[in-house]
């Protein structure tokens, strides 16, 4: 039955279906997908919900109690948030090597939540006005 339907489908539709199958199968095993899965496993429920809704999540620095917002991306994606919820300063620090966004964000979370002073000491500051969606790759 399925074979009959498959053979009757136009070649273009079959090609499209094959491409979609390939994308779904291999898409789940890409470095990006693995990074996102790892990040999701290590976020708190609140952070996970925030990330699902906004593509960012907040963490509290372990030394100062400051709030930082980690956006989806691999560079210039951490902002210190003031009491009114605005970006007060940008901080750029990343794990060395070319890691996928999920991994970079998880390393930034762990660093700020467990060794904030060291992370901020090595980070480069940038004014929050330079923050733009163009800095970030589109996620899933």
């Amino acid at each position: 039955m399925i074979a009959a339907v498959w053979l009757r489908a136009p070649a273009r539709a079959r090609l499209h279906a094959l491409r979609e199958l390939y994308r779904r199968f291999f898409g789940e095993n890409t470095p990006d997908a693995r990074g996102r899965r790892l990040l999701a496993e290590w976020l708190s429920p609140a952070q996970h919900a925030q990330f699902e809704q906004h593509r960012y999540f907040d963490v509290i620095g372990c030394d100062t109690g400051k709030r930082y917002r980690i956006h989806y991306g691999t560079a210039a994606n951490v902002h210190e948030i003031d009491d009114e919820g605005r970006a007060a300063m940008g901080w750029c620090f990343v794990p060395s090597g070319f890691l996928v966004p999920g991994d970079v964000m998880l390393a930034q979370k762990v660093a700020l939540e467990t060794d904030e002073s060291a992370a901020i000491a090595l980070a480069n500051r940038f004014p929050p006005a330079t923050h733009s969606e163009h800095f970030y790759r589109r996620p899933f």
Partner: protein
Amino acid sequence: MATQIVMDQTGDTRHEFDPDNAEALARAERRFRELTGAGFTAAYRTGPGEVTRIKSFDPTAQETLFYPRLVGG
């Protein structure tokens, strides 16, 4: 089974080992030392979303995460 998760360009590489197996435990400890010696940071989960950094091998940690040395971007 316990797991050591090492971030890399494939997303991550996972090393599973039986903490009750002395030989496997020794291998895991050696891996821990090699990675932290190479500049990786190690952390494990203490609860949902809660993490603790560790500087020495913890044989009771169920899941240990390693990420490469941080640099200013």
